[in-house]
């Protein structure tokens, strides 16, 4: 009887997971299915949940655009490349300069150290929209609008505090004894950071790099304001243009959306065991 109860309970709980699975997968699978449909099937009533004539044409159109396709899908591949360049640059710079700062904040006691820590949390709270006007004014007077560099620099405003906080949390967990031992061996602070703390924190650094890449890949607001030419825009802006006022390209948007979602989803799967620690560190506290 006990055993029957237990099985019944398991089955009941399992039934409860089904709506959750449905909620997670219904939108994304529909997006995927639509990305494989042609225009006619997309508009079919009743709806074709699974395309009867699946086609890769939508993907081919935006990855290897021919002359026939319009301007927006033709530049998707460029946008993809821009996004990769910008997100990787942001990630590398954040790890390089952020790790130095994170180390100083958690392992060196000095005046104003605590104030700076709090200041860095506070800057993470400032929304992008509050910084955009000055950045835009200075950026346009320097002629940086539509250049990737302005996105790399401005993405620092949210990515760097985030990276510093995550790395600070990871560095804090390195045993102090190791550091003291290295100091006695005559290691300098920088030596300790690069030879002791960083090697031990590799999983943490990888996790930080992944999160930094994700936030930079995801960013839309700065990219919308700072890029207007086809050559300069990033993937989120390109996708917004698929549904934009000029031309509605539903098939392109569906395929583009799947392509844009792939890198972050793959990264998240690869580093799933770091996800929660990264989320918590990025949230507020170190």
């Amino acid at each position, binding site marked *: 009887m006990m055993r029957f109860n237990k099985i019944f309970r398991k089955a009941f*709980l399992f039934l*409860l*997971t089904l709506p959750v*699975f449905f*909620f*997670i997968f219904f*939108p*994304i699978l*529909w*997006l995927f299915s639509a990305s494989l449909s042609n225009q006619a099937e997309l508009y*079919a*009533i*009743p709806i074709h949940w699974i395309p009867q004539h699946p086609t890769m044409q939508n993907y081919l159109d935006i990855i290897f655009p021919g002359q026939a396709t319009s301007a927006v899908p033709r530049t998707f591949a460029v946008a993809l490349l821009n996004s990769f360049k910008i997100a990787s640059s942001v990630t590398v710079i954040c790890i390089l300069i*952020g790790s*130095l*700062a994170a*180390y100083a904040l958690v392992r*060196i006691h*000095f005046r104003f*150290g605590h104030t*700076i820590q709090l200041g860095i949390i506070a*800057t993470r*709270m*400032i*929304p992008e*929209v*509050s*910084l*955009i*006007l*000055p*950045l835009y004014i200075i950026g346009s007077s320097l002629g940086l609008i539509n250049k990737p560099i302005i996105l790399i*620099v401005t993405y620092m*405003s949210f990515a*760097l*505090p985030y990276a*510093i906080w995550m790395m600070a949390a990871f560095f804090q967990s390195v045993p102090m*004894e190791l550091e*003291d*031992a290295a100091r*006695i061996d005559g290691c300098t*602070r920088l030596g300790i950071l690069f030879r*002791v703390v960083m090697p031990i924190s590799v999983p943490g650094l990888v996790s930080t790099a992944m999160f930094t890449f994700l936030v930079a*890949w*995801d960013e*839309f*607001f700065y990219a919308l304001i700072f890029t207007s030419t086809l050559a300069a825009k990033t*993937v*989120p802006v390109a*996708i*917004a243009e698929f*549904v934009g006022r000029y031309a509605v390209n539903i098939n392109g948007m569906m395929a583009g959306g799947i392509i844009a979602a792939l890198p*972050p*989803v793959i990264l*998240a799967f690869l580093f799933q065991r770091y*996800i*929660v620690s990264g*989320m*918590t560190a990025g949230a*507020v506290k170190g």
Partner: protein
Amino acid sequence: MQTHPKYIEMATNSTLLPKPRHSLRAQDARTAWLLLIPSLAVILGVTLWPIIYTFILSFFKAPTGINQVRTFVGLGNYMAMIKDQTFWDTIGRTMYFTVASVGLEMVGGMAIAQLIHSHPWGWKVLRICLIIPWAVPTIVNGAMWRWIYNADFGALNGLLMQLGLIKHYVAWLTLPNLAMPLVIVADVWHMLPFVALILQAALAGLPLELDEAASVDGANAFQRFWSIRLPLLRPAILVALVARTVDAFRVFDIVYIITNGGPANKTLTITYLTYLNSFPWGNQGIGAALSFLISFFTICMALIFIRWLYRPEETQ
């Protein structure tokens, strides 16, 4: 690098350490500043200086155009805002969005965390799958839902039609009272997993004995949840709550892509209004005043939450 046990012993035995000289501290401080300089320079350049500039700009009438002449108007921009009904409507809608989406995410996230924690068949799969919506970029998420709600071929219409719940396809996003809830659903799909994952991890870290002890004492499932798990989960709940509230209050991307603030401004949020003033409408002064207010609100909310988070009894 391998550390010989001898050194660890030396390091932990303070009598073996050389007496720290006074200059060592000073040297340390200098190193700290050197290490911080690159990051501080960046933060100064892209955050601190712009926010001060925004604050100053908010006291000027600053139209964009060929002859940009800025005139000092004192608190004029703020006064104009306060008198403008659109501003208050926008604040109200932003609050509506924030409270509804964060509320749903917290309650739903908690429910899913509990579900995973009770280890039904396939709970590990479920936990991994939760990462997918969270990892999908915000703009892709918005675009996806925009087409789900589409009037001509959207999946929502398709589904409801097949279930026999509607007779004709409905242009969902043109319905004034439904537009905001639909945007909220899209946001919940995207961010609920974030809350669920944080809470689930916290639940998994709770000591099992407490639950068992309460169970022996005759507490039912609800009592165990309410009096034991919930108080212990408070730090995790607060982390999720801060992150989500601060983010939801500044919502822009998802509104931009799904509704463009429409229909009839029914999804116009405060950040969207700021964007409109700052760029398409060219009222930089008003834009600056609005954006400064957003920062101010956000930091106040965050400070309140942080005070809770750093309650001393929870730091151990």
